[in-house]
């Protein structure tokens, strides 16, 4: 095939119930994005995935993509100033357990500076049996002063922004909680990318 064709992209199909035999084996899971040397404010984020009945989704896969503590992505397209933290990749991949939960260890990313400044956020892709394609959402950090000026949050109706906020666990410093509600009154905001 020669370049500059207009090819129809391959359709998505569900990840199904058996992805764990390849995608989230112990070897291929990435539960910890930040090594001991990684700079930044350490964050443990407990994700909880719930279906339209509020029941835990025990067979979901979550993939996370994020910038380092200075807001820099490990990617050639991030041609802005600064250099990425040594050893930083910024990718996480986890499977939910029977309670629909999984815990990511990472650092809080910096503001992403790209035309407009974006508040610290993680990009989250959700895959599961019963999902014919992945859903994308973002994880912001409740209480971060830069949330108010974030250009993406401003596209979200104010009453739904709450669903994009990881909430701090008042009992444990550095611990956050983020619910992914696939459906229902409190449905998480998902993005059409």
């Amino acid at each position: 095939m020669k370049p500059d064709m207009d090819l129809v992209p391959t359709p998505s199909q569900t990840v199904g119930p058996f992805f764990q035999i390849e995608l989230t084996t112990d070897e291929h899971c990435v539960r910890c994005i930040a090594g001991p040397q990684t700079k930044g404010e350490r964050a443990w984020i407990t994700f909880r995935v719930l279906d339209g009945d509020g029941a835990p989704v025990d067979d979901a896969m979550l993939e996370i993509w994020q910038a380092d503590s200075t807001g820099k992505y490990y990617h050639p397209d991030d041609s802005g100033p600064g250099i990425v933290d040594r050893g930083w990749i910024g990718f996480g991949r986890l499977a939910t357990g029977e309670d629909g939960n999984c815990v990511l260890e990472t650092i809080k990313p910096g503001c992403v500076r790209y035309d407009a400044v974006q508040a610290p956020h993680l990009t989250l892709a959700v895959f599961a049996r019963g999902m014919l394609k992945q859903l994308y959402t973002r994880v912001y950090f409740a209480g971060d002063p830069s949330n108010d000026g974030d250009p993406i949050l401003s596209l979200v109706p104010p009453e739904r922004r709450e669903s994009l906020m990881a909430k701090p666990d008042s009992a444990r410093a550095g611990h956050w909680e983020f619910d992914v509600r696939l459906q229902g009154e409190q449905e998480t905001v998902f993005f059409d990318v």
Partner: protein
Amino acid sequence: MDGLTTPTSRKAYCRLPKGSQPPSLYEPYQATRKRAPLKPLILLPHTLSEITGPVYGHEKIGEKDNDLTVQHAGEPLGERIIVSGRVLDSNGRPVPNALIEIWQANSAGRYRHAKDQHPAPLDPNFSGAGRTLTGQAGEYRFITIKPGSYPWFNHHNAWRPAHIHFSVFGDAFIARLVTQMYFPGDPLFPYDPIFQSIPDEKARERLISKFDLETTQPQWAKAFRFDIVLRGREATPFET
């Protein structure tokens, strides 16, 4: 959306053509009913967070990872096949160094997974998982066993067409693709809601591999070709 226009050096990705992707909610596939959002998705302009994406798994690839027939002491039972093709973007450009991961049932239609209770035998010589990286022309190749079809509980007498699960990383997190490859002429296609969920017939047919006589090795293995098209960047008339 002022201030979020993407410079040409870091261009946005194409939006997926209407009908080329399944909807989140597809009633005939019952498990979608409680797992599909019902509120409108919010259109996201492509910022740096979307057009970048992970380089992942490159260091974790073993020599035998793309040959699912040599991972154990003996050879797995079933029909040995070669599955190969290219990963391209929607502009027709090859995608090199893309990680492809696959997983599948064995020749009897059973996955090596605790939750698979289909009363078909496991094969001690088959794990059903592999991975590889694409070459400079986007090419890849796996050797495996043709998976069996298997029953599931979606509706009465439901059977999945034989398939291999594919997971592919492109250059951007939004170009990420998880899909399933099928085999030509499967009689189960008309009855499978997962396959039928894709509205556009041409897009649906992208998921069906083609018998590939040229790659077929005499006296050894039949070959099937499966080309994968990821989202590419938006074309602009000024690009050279």
